[in-house]
Each structure stands twice: as structure tokens, then as C-alpha cells.
């Protein structure tokens, strides 16, 4: 890869606005995501975190602004939006596995239907990714037979099976029972260590501190503060960031003791 390509962000959100009716949720967001970055988006509920990540793959239509993919407007570069979405994987808070399919089929259907990959290759890729998240023993199970943590790991494998360049994760551990959060975070950390580019909306401050290359604190529809984990967690400059983090720090300290 040439240095030129390295200098262009894989994903770039430019001047993103999003309103629902009269309510403006996002008021001009700019984010660059480079290859290998792990961008963690933190903030209070209702600050627009989920809306932001959903705008990136056009699950929500941005009111204005550009989502650039390798420097080109994704809307224009991809005549076919579905192919862009396959490049930008998504993991949901509520897992959203396809209930009518087995674990294996969940990880194959996108490959065969969207990327038109043949069954055999699709199966191999699916198994590979399921193994990666430790769910290869469960290929015959239906989603309703799995625990929340298992479902989320399958959902991650489903997204990875399309070989996305970026993985978007919308509060991947928020719907999980506390004892299952760990298994999912472990998978996410492995992926980050392997160099997968990720954008993660999360309330897991410890994860953001450990894994993120960039932390964005979103407040009332604007980026209140952004920087490295060290800058945000150890030396926050804005009052709102400090207030927000102080609530979590109490918890973090009590966990460490």
C-alpha cells in the first residue's frame, strides 16, 4: 500500500447533520477514521451516538453532509448502496440475528446473496469467522437457543464474513447480562489487535481506554471533545467531559479495588 492511500481516511464523516422532524440530533459532525483505527464514541444517552453510527452506513439518511469512503462520497462512488454496506459491517445492540436461520446460515446468507460467493467458499469463510469468535461448535443452533453473548459473537462473525473494511458497532454490549459482557469485549479486543478498523459506540470506558486509538465524546449533537484515550480519560479539558467521566470513574475505581 502506498503512503498516499494511508493518508486518506477509510471513512470520513464531513459536516454531518441529522434531524428528525424539528429535532436536530446531529449538528455538524466531522470524524476521520484511518485504516487500523479503533474509534470509540462515548457520551450520554440521547447525545446522538447511535444516530451518528447509523448515518455512516445510511440506515438513517443524513439530512446533510458527506460520508466519504476512501476519499470519495460514498453515495456517488457506490451506485449500489448495498455493496457499500457490505464493505462497512454493522453490529447492533440487539444482535438482530436472522431467527429463521441457523448460526451457520446467518453467516453465509450475506456472502451468497449480496457478494454472490458460491456456497462452498461462503461456508468456509463463515466457519473461519465463527471459529474466530469461538462459536464454531454451534453452527447448527438457531438464534433463540443461544445466550445474549453467544448471539452477539455470531452477529460479529456474520459481519466479518463479508470481509468489511470497517466494522461499526452500536453499543454491542449494552443489551447483555453483566457476566456476558466480558466474552464479547474479548472478541472485540482480539479484532482490534489484529488491526481491524472499528467504530464503536460504547459505555465500556475500560474498553475505550485500553483499545481505542481515538475517543470521541459526543454531547448534545456535537463533538465536545476528541483525542487519544490518554487525553480524554486522564486530561479532559472540557467541563462536560469531566462531569461525564466522573460518573464512570467512581465505578471504575470500585471495580479495581
Amino acid at each position, binding site marked *: 500500500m502506498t503512503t498516499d492511500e494511508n493518508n486518506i481516511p477509510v471513512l470520513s464523516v464531513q459536516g454531518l447533520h441529522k434531524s428528525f422532524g424539528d429535532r436536530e440530533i446531529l449538528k455538524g459532525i466531522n470524524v476521520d477514521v484511518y485504516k487500523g483505527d479503533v474509534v470509540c464514541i462515548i457520551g450520554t444517552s440521547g447525545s446522538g451516538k447511535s444516530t451518528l453510527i447509523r448515518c455512516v452506513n445510511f440506515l438513517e439518511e443524513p439530512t446533510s453532509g458527506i460520508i466519504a469512503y476512501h476519499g470519495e462520497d460514498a453515495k456517488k462512488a457506490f451506485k449500489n448502496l448495498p455493496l457499500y*454496506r*457490505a464493505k462497512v459491517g454493522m453490529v*447492533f445492540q440487539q444482535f*438482530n440475528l*436472522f431467527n*429463521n436461520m441457523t448460526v451457520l446460515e446467518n453467516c453465509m446468507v*450475506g456472502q451468497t*446473496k*449480496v457478494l454472490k460467493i458460491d456456497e462452498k467458499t461462503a461456508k468456509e469463510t463463515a466457519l473461519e469467522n465463527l471459529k474466530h469468535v469461538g462459536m464454531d461448535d454451534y453452527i447448527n443452533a438457531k438464534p433463540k437457543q443461544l445466550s445474549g453473548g453467544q448471539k452477539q459473537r455470531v452477529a460479529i462473525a456474520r459481519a466479518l464474513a*463479508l470481509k468489511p473494511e470497517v466494522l461499526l458497532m452500536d453499543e454491542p454490549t449494552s443489551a447483555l447480562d453483566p457476566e456476558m459482557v466480558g466474552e464479547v469485549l474479548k472478541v472485540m479486543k482480539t479484532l482490534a489487535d489484529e488491526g481491524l478498523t472499528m467504530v464503536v459506540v460504547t459505555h465500556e470506558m475500560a474498553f475505550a481506554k485500553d483499545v481505542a486509538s481515538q475517543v470521541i465524546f459526543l454531547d448534545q449533537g456535537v463533538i465536545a471533545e476528541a483525542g487519544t484515550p490518554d487525553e480524554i480519560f486522564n486530561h479532559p479539558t472540557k467541563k462536560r467531559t469531566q462531569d461525564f467521566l466522573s460518573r464512570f470513574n467512581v465505578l471504575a475505581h470500585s471495580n479495581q479495588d
Partner: protein
Amino acid sequence: MSAMPTTFFGWVYFLLQEYGVVLFKGAVVTLLLAIVGTLIGCVIGLIVGIIETIPEDRNASAFSRALLKCEKRVLDAYVEVFRGTPMIVQAMVVFYGAMSLFGIDMSPLFAGFLVVSINTGAYMAESMRGGIDSVDPGQKEAAIAIGMDHFQAMQCVILPQAVRNILPQIGNNLIINIKDTSVLNVISVTELYFASKSAAGVYYKYFEIFFITCVIYFIMTFTASRLIRWWESKIDGPDAYVLVHDPLADPTGIVAPPITAIPKKGQ
């Protein structure tokens, strides 16, 4: 001619021998009308249901948006009209209307298939819409997010679950159709009721004949309802699943080694 029967069951036996074949043929026509009508009705319902649930695309051209809106209105009208009028009246209107308005002389049986299908379609359209709504929208979103379009998401994810959810209603419709095709006797479709009426007129034995008819209808509806139940449980599949490498999954406790682990000869 031998002596006439004197008891109720004597008459039933006698009439069965005399008109068994006629009634059987009538029952076949009834079943055919009900099954084909329900199947085509389901297909109509499916198509209407899919169109009714197409989300409005803000990026589409004004023309295609107007077209979609028009289509939805027409389909709404179809559902309302055919749900809102009795099938017996629809049969008359279609059969005689086709003749007097368009000069089409369709056979009563063909008119029968047409009416049952369209009528069932109107009911199934509403059931199907409900079935599609019953599938959690997150799955549709996930399908979109991995790059499927509306129709792929429908075909692979939503419809299989929607159809499963409305199977009881499909069963209901099938049973209703088995019974209600009897109204098609007004346009002289020789289904079971028509056959029974003809047979009853010969000896004026209405009770005896219709007792037999009653039993035949019940056998057909009961079988249909059991078959639908069986189909439901088949779709649901087993409650348990098999772990791929779990030694406990095999009740004998003897686990076959994975094929890759068998050493090749000469190694």
C-alpha cells in the same frame, strides 16, 4: 328393485351405495377449489403484502413514488371490496357479469376458482401484512446493513418468518374455503353441496344425505387442520440442537474422530 330400507342407517347405507361416487366426486371438486383457491390466494396475499410494506424511498423520483402510492391505493380498494362483500354475491357478479359485460362464457368451475382465489387473496393480504409487521424490524435492518435490498430481505429473512407466523391463519382460510365453496352451487359448480342437493332430491331423503355430507365435510376439515399443525411443527424444527464437537452430544459417548485427524496410509 329390492325393498326400500326402513331404518335411518339403512337409508344411509343405501344412499351411500347409490350416490357414494357422486358425493365423492363432489368432495374432490370441493377440495380442489379450496386448496387451489387458498394457494393462489396466498400468492396474491403475499404480493399485495410485499407491495403494501415497501418503505417510502425519499431518494426515488417523484414519478415512482406517485406510482407506488397509486398501487397501494388500488390494492387497498381490492382488499376492502372483496372482504366487504359475500362470496356468494361475488360468484354471481363474476360469473354473470363476465358473460353480460365482456361476453366471456367461462365455465362455472373456472369462475369458482377465480372467485375463491380472489376472495382468499383479500383476506390473506391483511394477514400477510400482519405477519410481516410481526417480524422484529431489527432483522430487516440487519439484512439491509449486510447489503440486502428490500426484496432480498423479504425473501430470505422476513417472509419465511412471516409465513410461519400466519400459518394458523392460512389453515383457517383453508378450512373456511372447504366449507364456504358450498356457496358456489349458485353458479352450478358441482361441488359437494351441489352433489348432495341433487342426490337428496331423488328420494326426498334430505336428512340422510346431508348427514353423510356433514361427515365428509368434517373429515376434510379435520384432516386439513391436522396437516397444518404438522407443517407448523415441521417448520419450527427440533427444540434441541447438536453441538459439532461436543462429546456429550453422542449418547453412546463414542465420538468419531474428525475426518482430518485420520492419518493417511503411508504416513
